[in-house]
């Protein structure tokens, strides 16, 4: 049993990062995730002598991450929506150069400056490629403070395994809420093997290493893209994570991730108590998306509701999976308003009555 603590989601992430042997963090303050940088500047160097630097912008942060990752460091950054938008160019370069690193987006409401309140409005940006070119981020969506902590090390391990950036997509509420969390033991820095491709200085026994996303010859660029697509297929085959709750006998399924999944769970309990067989599918990886799990449920349920804190984004993936076999609805609130379970129960009942 690891050490138990009561922590904010943001702080749990930061603590988990120190324990996962982070070499560096580069970030820029933004609500609702400034606690990450604050926690790390307070704790990290003293404990493991790692690098924590407040950059002049998110553009700088993500490019510092690029440099550090390219040189073989275990590195990460975090921000919230507007800052993540600024990072998109860098993320595309990181994906193109295949650099392993971790990014956390504590999603707030948009568009524009929007609101500092929680939101899931960055789903499209996260899973459909917010930057330019054909690339994918592995996207992990925690629903608890425990998962906020766990996904840090898991994310880095995935990043290393596939040489691919990993995004933790949580929302402002998860970042701010306090829950009990069991922390993993400290991994000593420097025990992670330095990748052979990293720019660590050209020694006599090897050719120079270079990190680049530039492939000017059409044939070469196409080959690089094909290789990336192969890698993405492998990730789709191996790394889908999803939680299913009472879907086996369900007549109706709620699909929801992160905070919405917690509401969805409550809705499920209320409706089951009333005799309506509702199940829940909680995608944990938003990319790769658990299409097969949703598709399988579509074999026997009468309808789906995609419950999101946005105007309807993930619902497109649910519809892709269901492929017209039964109705797929969406319910979402915006501006930081969290729907009450009762509100959602009414929505489902209304939808359910029309289906039957």
């Amino acid at each position: 049993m690891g050490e138990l603590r009561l922590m904010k989601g943001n702080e749990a992430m930061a603590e988990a990062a120190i324990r996962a042997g982070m070499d560096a963090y580069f970030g820029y303050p933004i609500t609702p995730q400034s606690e990450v940088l604050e926690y790390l500047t307070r704790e990290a160097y003293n404990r493991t002598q790692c690098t924590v630097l407040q950059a002049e912008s998110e553009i700088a942060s993500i490019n510092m991450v690029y440099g550090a990752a390219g040189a073989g460091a275990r590195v990460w950054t975090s921000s919230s929506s507007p800052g993540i938008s600024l990072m998109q160019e860098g993320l595309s370069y990181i994906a193109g150069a295949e650099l392993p690193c971790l990014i956390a987006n504590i999603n707030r409401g948009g568009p524009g400056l929007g609101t500092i309140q929680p939101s899931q409005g960055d789903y499209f940006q996260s899973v459909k490629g917010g930057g330019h070119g054909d690339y994918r981020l592995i996207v992990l969506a925690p629903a608890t403070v425990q998962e906020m902590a766990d996904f840090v090390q898991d994310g880095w391990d995935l990043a290393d395994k596939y040489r691919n950036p990993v995004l933790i997509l949580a929302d402002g509420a998860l970042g701010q809420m306090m829950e009990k969390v069991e922390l993993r033991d400290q991994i000593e820095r420097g025990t992670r093997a330095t990748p052979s491709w990293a720019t660590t200085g050209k020694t006599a026994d090897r050719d120079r290493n270079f990190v680049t996303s530039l492939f000017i010859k059409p044939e070469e660029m196409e080959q690089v893209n094909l290789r990336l697509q192969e890698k993405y297929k492998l990730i789709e085959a191996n790394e889908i994570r999803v939680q299913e709750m009472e879907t086996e006998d369900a007549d109706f399924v709620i699909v929801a991730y992160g905070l919405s999944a917690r509401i969805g769970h409550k809705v499920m309990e209320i409706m089951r108590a009333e005799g309506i067989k509702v199940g829940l599918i909680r995608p944990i990886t938003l990319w790769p998306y658990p299409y097969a799990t949703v598709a399988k449920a579509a074999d026997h349920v009468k309808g789906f509701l995609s419950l999101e804190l946005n105007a309807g984004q993930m619902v497109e993936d649910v519809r892709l999976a269901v492929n017209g076999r039964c109705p797929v609805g969406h319910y979402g609130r915006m501006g930081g308003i969290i729907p009450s379970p009762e509100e959602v129960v009414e929505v489902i009942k209304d939808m359910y009555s029309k289906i039957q």
Partner: protein
Amino acid sequence: MEKSMQEIEHHHDEMNIVCERPSTLLDARMHYCPGCGHGVAHRILMEAVEELGIQEQTIGVAPVGCSVFAYLYMNVDMQEAAHGRATAVATGIKRCFPDKYVYTYQGDGDLAAIGTGETVHTVNRGENILIVFINNAIYGMTGGQMAPTTLIHQKTSTTPYGREASFMGNPLKITELLAQLPGAFYVTRQAVNTPVNVRRAKKALLNGLKYQKLNKGTCLVEIVSNCPTNWGMKPVQANEWLVENMLPYYPLGDMKVPSKEDIENA
């Protein structure tokens, strides 16, 4: 009286060659236009790395610009940064690996337009890196558009009637600006248009690399360079234009040099 190819080859046979090109040397012809200053700057930078014996500890960062492929010519580990972000990338490397020698190689568009923010803050933090800044007063790679350093009345593809200060602002003396920052340790402006200038520029690069060990701040070596192709001149003519037009506005010389104590106490 010009020698034929055969004569030249014959001539080579008779030479007393002590130093030969090593077999490990890849035959990569640089893609730069004839007479382009990038080639000289690459060479002297690599000479400096070689002379200091720091190839194994050196990590370079290439920009977006004509020198985007610097990593195909420079035989050190390198990273290719997004346009303007080279110093942020270098910061990431240096902060994690402070024992390495880290340099960026950037054009005027890269360093002084799109990357101004990163440049200023990198120098302001006094990152212990060397910034090699190639000022050719134009965007070479994209076909000769106006750069922040383009001179008044200089014609480019986006200032077809010449740059007007009232409309496009004045040529940015970013090096002077950066020299004001306490984080800057060594700031100098050099050129590579004559043998003497090439020697001086190389010495500056040697210093810029060497000083990193002192952990005293950022070293910046601006190299006033040319772009014969987009200036629409032959190389010899371009270098004359450089002397007549660039150097009066961008005078060569040191802007900030370490004090004796700085170097001795380190």
